[in-house]
């Protein structure tokens, strides 16, 4: 059989709503018609594509579409449609289409509809993803997406407190459930040996006998029961009624809450049939059925009544699924379909009443039949279906439900009370259905309604008309209308267990019929009895209205997330940096001691052999410099800087000594730049006088001794560690590989440089990106910065020089400052070309001899730096436009293009030119593509270094400006 339907259409089914959502978000926020057309076409398209798939899934057919995602982990984007998923996909797109039409008339012109339709479509896509996932992890992902989009939809009117609270609660409950579900899915996949849905469905026996069955079941049930608002997680649903009514009609009748029972049915062949399943699911379902129905009677809010009724009906489905009998599963699937149709239409009717009358409070609504005759008639039919009146679809599945509760499934109390509970809940359903109709549409004319009600626009009613028509058709000729569709869905779930069942209105006089009759009569009687009480009772059922799930939830939330967090922060945390660093160091030292524990026995002899006395002398100086810097850094910053430089120089000489000329060159150059940088920064620090701090209290003394001990321990620790490591022979390392292949494959004799630009070029690439980011951060931080008040005046030395000019008759103020360091500055200017040449030299020889892009880049920036020192910021910038950001950009671009260039030849990113040439003589020419990469490194280093230095240097020019504006304060301070 050839068909135009292709498995790729599955991608369309899931993806199209998301694409539509993107477009919807981009439209103008008051384009109501355009949005509705767009969303309508997306839903209609989805509906059509799904409908066309029917021949593929009839008779147990399955279509799959697999896109590999992380094959190593067994993760793939597998989409799969079978009869059951098909039924849900039809519901999602079909009711989605009706909701879109309805929402067009429901939403007010003041509402930002772009957001509404974007969320609605995205939710539709997520929901399609849930039902069409062929991979159970993917299912969990889409599951969480539905939670997130339902959060956004419930909280759509985010200016009202109720919407925000309801949305947050729904997200917390269903989101947490979703996380449990994910964990459960992982366990399920572990048990089945695959995350593929088909594999999991085929592994039912292994899973039920596995040790992990119970934890997996509990986790999956946590997901399903929270989503379907089952007791004790039911309380989020009534609070979610703060959503716009189209959202309630869509999410809380046909889709979102159905996801939970969808999941239970989907995994019914795998998980059902055990005692655990029967009792947990059965108890949850039964209590939800009864409590939901009872609470629904006492609601005064129309949507609240419908919400509790939904909870009750979902409980009915859950209870059916818990029984473990195939016939019960058939009834459950049938009821999912029926409930979606009548409940969606009732929500829409409630929305119309709210829209037209201006209130949903049943105490105020009355006698609306004369104003809204058509809507009233439609609502009556739908309510009758909800109550289970014959000739309507609700009756059929309820009858099947009654029949199932009579059957013995597992000898237990739960089984024994089931028929009674079912009949009572049936009676309650009749009561609240009658109440809905009688209170709203009949009785005396309403008084002081906010609005004068009249029939809504015709198209707002069309969705309800279609849904009610479906209720009637299914109710009167079930076998002809949905018989085959239901069969397709049932076969997909139950496969070979599919039982014989008959969809007929009349099964003869039997016990289920008797139960129906009892429920109808008892429901009417109950309503008549309760009517006086309900006329103006408070919202919610007696007694229970005090025990609010919402209140308990909020209390727990506050305790855990706010009080608990505060308490822990108070006990464990500090905002001070020093204690944090102290803790870090202490942990590091302890970890080091722990690791080296016992190594003291093997401590090699502390031989002084081979120590060169000259290097030893140098390190005496270096060590003194380091300690001196540590000692002086508080009060004598300049001295500390010089001493730090001393330690750096000795380090640099050590590199030369120990055969690492590349390091020595780079270290020396960096040393120069760092020193200049810190010198520039020194100007902006506050003065600190030694005398003030002479008296030291014991607490400070204690802290200092503690820090000193930590410092000594850290020093000794690293020294020991370094010594022990150096005395053990070097194991063969990857360095040997680089040595052996640097020339033959990298084409350079300076192995360090070849590693940087060739073997590990990608690391270097990352590193220069970091350097560029740091430079831009420095630039951004200083761009809008104004230094502290006390440092913004002209430095003391310059003031003194200006005063000298002032006294001399033949000198202008500023001349001395200008000529400061005249001779060195002339030399520095002349040095510029020489330094540029040196940079070029270091760069070009880098591949074969010490040097390279880093060293050359810093040399070049020192060249610029000297010009700034010699001439001052203004002088340089009048003559030389450096544009460091362009240098950075060029460097990055150069490195990237060089890397991408290797793609043209089919090699991985940053493959060097030398790797794919076999020509022997080319090795003598330094034309490796690595050289271009190194040019990028060079350019970026120049740009980054100069940008940072200039950013700091510019502070001096800036701060001088306000000073010249108000010289009087200047004089007062000096």
């Amino acid at each position, binding site marked *: 059989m050839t068909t135009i339907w292709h498995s790729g259409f599955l991608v369309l089914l899931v993806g199209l709503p998301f694409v539509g959502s993107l477009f919807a978000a981009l439209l103008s926020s008051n384009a109501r018609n355009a949005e509705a057309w767009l969303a309508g076409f997306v839903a209609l398209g989805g509906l059509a594509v799904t409908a066309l798939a029917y021949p593929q899934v009839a008779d147990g057919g399955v279509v799959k579409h697999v896109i590999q995602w992380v094959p190593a982990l067994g993760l793939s984007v597998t989409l799969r449609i079978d009869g059951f998923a098909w039924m849900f996909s039809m519901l999602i797109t079909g009711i989605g289409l009706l909701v879109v039409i309805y929402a067009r008339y429901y939403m007010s012109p003041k509402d930002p509809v772009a957001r509404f339709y974007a969320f609605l479509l995205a939710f539709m896509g997520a929901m399609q993803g849930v039902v069409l996932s062929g991979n159970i992890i993917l299912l969990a992902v889409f599951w969480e997406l539905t939670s997130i989009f339902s959060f956004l939809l419930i909280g759509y009117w985010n200016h009202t407190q109720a919407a925000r609270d309801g949305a947050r609660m729904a997200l917390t409950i269903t989101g947490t459930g979703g996380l449990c579900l994910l964990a459960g899915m992982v366990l399920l996949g572990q048990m089945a040996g695959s995350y593929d849905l088909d594999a999991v469905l085929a592994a039912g026996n292994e899973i039920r006998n596995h040790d992990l069955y119970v934890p997996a079941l509990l986790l999956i049930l946590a997901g399903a029961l929270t989503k379907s608002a089952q007791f004790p997680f039911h309380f989020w649903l009534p609070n979610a009624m703060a959503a716009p009514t189209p959202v309630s009609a869509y999410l809380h009748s046909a889709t979102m809450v159905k996801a939970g029972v969808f999941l239970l049915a989907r995994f019914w062949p795998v998980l059902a049939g055990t005692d655990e399943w029967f009792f947990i699911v059965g108890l949850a379902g039964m209590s939800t059925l009864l409590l939901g129905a009872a609470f629904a009677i006492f609601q005064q809010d129309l949507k609240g009544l419908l919400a509790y009724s939904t909870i009750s009906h979902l409980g009915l489905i859950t209870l059916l699924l818990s029984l473990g009998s195939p016939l019960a599963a058939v009834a459950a699937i049938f009821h999912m379909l029926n409930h979606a149709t009548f409940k969606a239409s009732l929500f829409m009717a409630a929305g119309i009443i709210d829209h037209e009358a201006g209130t949903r409070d049943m105490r105020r609504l009355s006698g609306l039949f004369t104003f809204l005759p058509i809507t009233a008639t439609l609502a009556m039919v739908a309510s009758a279906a909800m109550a289970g009146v014959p000739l309507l679809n609700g009756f059929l599945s309820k009858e099947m439900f009654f029949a199932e509760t009579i059957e013995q499934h597992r000898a237990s109390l739960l089984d024994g009370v089931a028929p009674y509970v079912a009949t009572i809940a049936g009676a309650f359903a009749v009561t609240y259905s009658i109440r809905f109709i009688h209170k709203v549409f009949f009785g005396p004319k309403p008084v002081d309604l906010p609005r004068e009600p009249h029939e809504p626009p015709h198209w707002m009613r069309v969705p309800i008309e279609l849904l009610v028509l479906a209720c009637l058709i299914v109710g009167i000729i079930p076998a002809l209308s949905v018989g085959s569709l239901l069969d397709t869905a049932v076969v997909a779930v139950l496969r070979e267990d599919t039982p014989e069942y008959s969809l007929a209105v009349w099964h003869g006089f039997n016990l289920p019929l008797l139960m129906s009759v009892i429920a109808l009569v008892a429901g009417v009687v109950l309503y008549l009895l309760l009517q006086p009480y309900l006329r103006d009772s408070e919202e919610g059922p007696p007694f229970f209205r005090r025990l609010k799930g919402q209140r308990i939830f909020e209390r727990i939330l506050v305790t855990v997330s706010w009080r608990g967090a505060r308490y822990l922060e108070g006990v464990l945390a500090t905002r001070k940096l020093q204690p944090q660093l102290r803790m870090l160091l202490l942990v590091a030292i302890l970890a080091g001691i722990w690791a080296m524990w016992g190594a003291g026995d093997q401590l090699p002899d502390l031989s002084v052999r081979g120590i060169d006395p000259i290097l030893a002398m140098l390190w005496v100086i*270096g060590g003194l410099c380091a300690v001196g810097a540590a000692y002086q850094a508080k009060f004598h910053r300049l001295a500390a800087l010089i001493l*730090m430089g001393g330690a750096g120089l000795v380090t640099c000489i050590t590199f030369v000594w120990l055969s690492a000329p590349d390091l020595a060159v780079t270290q020396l150059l960096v040393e120069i730049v760092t020193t200049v940088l810190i010198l520039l*920064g020194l100007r902006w620090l506050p003065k600190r006088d030694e005398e003030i701090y002479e008296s030291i209290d014991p607490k400070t003394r204690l802290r200092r001794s503690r820090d000193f001990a930590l410092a000594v321990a850290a020093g000794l620790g690293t020294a020991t560690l370094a010594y022990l490591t150096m005395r053990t022979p070097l194991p063969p390392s990857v360095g040997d590989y680089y040595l052996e292949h640097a020339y033959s494959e990298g084409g350079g004799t300076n192995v360090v440089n070849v590693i940087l630009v060739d073997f590990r070029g990608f690391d270097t690439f990352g590193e220069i990106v970091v350097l560029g980011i740091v*430079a831009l951060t420095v630039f951004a931080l200083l761009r809008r910065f104004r230094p502290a008040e006390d440092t913004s005046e002209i430095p003391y030395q310059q003031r003194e020089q200006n005063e000298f000019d002032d006294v001399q008759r033949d000198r202008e103020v500023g001349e001395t400052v200008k000529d400061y360091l005249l001779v060195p500055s002339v030399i520095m200017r002349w040095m510029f070309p020489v330094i540029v040449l040196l940079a070029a030299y270091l760069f070009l020889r880098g591949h074969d001899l010490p040097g390279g892009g880093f060293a050359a880049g810093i040399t070049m920036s020192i060249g610029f730096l000297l010009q700034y020192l010699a001439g001052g910021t203004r002088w340089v910038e009048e003559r030389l436009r450096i544009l460091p950001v362009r240098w950075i950009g060029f460097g990055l671009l150069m490195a990237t293009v060089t890397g991408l260039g290797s793609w043209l030849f089919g090699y991985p990113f940053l493959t060097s030119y030398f790797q794919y040439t076999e020509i022997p003589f080319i090795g003598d020419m330094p034309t490796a593509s690595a050289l271009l990469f190194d040019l990028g490194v060079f350019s970026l280093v120049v740009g980054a270094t100069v940008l*940072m230095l200039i950013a700091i240097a510019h502070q001096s020019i800036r701060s001088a400006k306000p000073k010249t504006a108000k010289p009087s304060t200047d004089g007062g301070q000096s």
Partner: protein
Amino acid sequence: MELLIALAIGTLTGSGVWLLLRPRTYQVVIGLALLSYAVNLFIFSMGRLRVNAPPVLDGSMPVDPAAYTDPLPQALVLTAIVIGFATTALFLVVLIVSRGLTGTDHVDGRESDR
């Protein structure tokens, strides 16, 4: 020779750690610079110390790795030096800006209340 370098690393680390725990931002910046010398030397020493080993290949084939120093730690340290410079610069600027914003050069942004 190993003992000397180990002691040098220890001294630099000790001085750096002491400064790291001080309350003034400038002290911390200097401390980090000293600490980065120590860490660079430490990483470098992981390739073991070689005096007078040729640092550059002479172009003859095949190469005997035993005749040369280990280039890998050198390459690591080379990048570490440059990144170390960048972080020092960043810290310095954060120091200046924080001083301008909070009016103090204490690491917590306010004088401690001892």
